[in-house]
């Protein structure tokens, strides 16, 4: 209305709204509103608008068992609505007297990348754009200089003469830098050693991605695309339930399997038996035997002080 208000009282003796000023003002207002509405269009196209329930959800550590039951039901409902598959979502807690560790035999790994794809299938990772927790590095014999590594190798046959391969994934550090930098405590280390992420609490600032010395964390730049027939319905809250756009994810030692006593998916699919997993607190477990008796190239990037729970070892 200020536009129609006379600027100069002397120039508008009747001081009312003339037909001309009314039309002019309404035309300007209408185009202005149309432009504002048009510029908000991307907001209305958002696919991932959180439901009120999800938006108001409390922090994982503050949820009572009753709250959690409701949350799991909500997730099951939402997944079923989106993929047409009724999942089984659980909130598995760390087992008493269990601390996980992983060992990988560098003498046996042939670099076939089966672990990469078994992980994608098990953990409901986005297929396009691709999110993969495991990166297999090909390195020439005689060096651990990661600058010399190649992850895009595609020969007809592996292993290649003169090279070895080293799969790298989240190292589940004792002293995880990703946890320290999270401004909202959406990622933390559990008592069994797994560093987990609450996907409903993550704000997507990607500080953790920058802090990780192992490039282990992945960001969902878009809504993940997973074909419904490839969805793994056996899910865990802190594990492989489908993520949304704008949150971080990473390897969690297949929490939905390992906390139920099973081996991780990458281990089960490895054709050479290079991957070993278990409870280090049990002195008779496979993993304890390996750490005790094998030549362990301690941990990747030992010098940065993260103290990983992921060990690389050699035969002989």
């Amino acid at each position, binding site marked *: 209305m200020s536009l129609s208000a006379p*600027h100069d009282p002397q120039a508008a003796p009747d001081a009312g709204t003339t037909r001309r000023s009314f039309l002019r003002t309404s035309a300007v207002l209408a*185009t202005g509103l149309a432009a504002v509405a048009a510029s908000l269009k991307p907001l209305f196209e958002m696919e991932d608008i959180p439901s009120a329930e999800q938006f108001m959800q409390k922090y994982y550590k503050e949820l009572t068992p009753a709250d959690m039951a409701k949350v799991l039901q909500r997730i099951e409902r939402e997944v079923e609505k989106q993929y047409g598959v009724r999942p089984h979502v659980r909130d598995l807690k760390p087992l008493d007297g269990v601390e996980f560790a992983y060992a990988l035999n560098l003498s046996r790994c042939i670099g076939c*990348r*089966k672990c990469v794809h078994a992980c994608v299938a098990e953990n409901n990772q986005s297929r396009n754009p691709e999110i993969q927790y495991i990166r297999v590095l090909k390195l020439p014999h005689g060096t651990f200089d990661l600058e010399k590594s190649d992850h895009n190798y595609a020969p007809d*046959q592996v292993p290649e003469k003169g090279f070895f391969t080293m799969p790298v994934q989240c190292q589940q550090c004792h002293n995880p830098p990703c946890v320290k930098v999270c401004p909202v405590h959406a990622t933390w280390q559990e008592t069994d050693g797994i560093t987990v992420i609450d996907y409903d609490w993550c704000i997507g600032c990607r500080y953790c991605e920058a802090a990780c010395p192992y490039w282990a964390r992945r960001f969902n730049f878009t809504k993940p695309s997973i074909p419904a027939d490839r969805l793994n319905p056996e899910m865990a809250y802190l594990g492989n339930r489908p993520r949304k756009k704008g949150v971080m994810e990473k390897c969690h030692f297949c929490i939905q399997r390992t906390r139920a006593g099973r081996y991780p998916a990458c281990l089960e699919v490895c054709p*050479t038996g290079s991957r070993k997993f278990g409870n280090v607190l049990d002195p008779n477990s496979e993993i304890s*035997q390996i750490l005790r008796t094998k030549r362990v190239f301690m941990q990747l990037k030992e010098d940065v002080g993260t103290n990983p729970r992921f060990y690389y070892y050699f035969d002989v």
Partner: protein
Amino acid sequence: MHANNRTPLVLTLLAVVFVGLAAAFYSDSWGYPPPRAAIPLVDKALLDTATVRRSYADLIRAKEDLSDFDCYGCHDKKQPPPLRYDENQKLIVPPEHSDVVMGHGSHGRNNNCFNCHNENNLTTLQPRDGRELKLENSTQLCGSCHGPTYRDWDSGAHGRTNGYWNTKLGPALKKDCVNCHNPHSPRFPGRKPAPGPHTLHPSDTADRAAEAESPSTH
């Protein structure tokens, strides 16, 4: 007075700009990235956790047809089958056993069937210490020569175990030597690796493919 005359002009121009903006937003003229290149889904065979081979013990467990292991269906029980060698002292594998590839060790000296099979009872195995072993206990035969590997396998450092790490919650399925290794030619064959990571930008992928085509010298 001059400024007042210019007001309608400015307003008209502004209106035109707004209308233009509105039209641009509605027609998605910018801000939308080009569509991503399709990434083919991986072959489900790559996700298979089964071992390459099945052991005799697996066949017994699955109650399968074991007629292939009925040695005395063809062989004579009274005398050990004769072995024939060519002029280079290489074993001639008879056509009945053409599926057997003799390639145990790169030295070529392990070319005698009865280094492992028992010539007096073909349905059993016999390590050099004279023990008689059933076919399903072949790991002990392997261990009679490959001591350190057997020790590692026994402790879990070598070989595959599927199932449960926590045996209170379920069984750990420890695989035998022959689940992965062909006893007649145990060296692990090479295989084609599964597809590597795809980039968001197809041009990068194309460059990489071109690079892979050209003979690399690194």
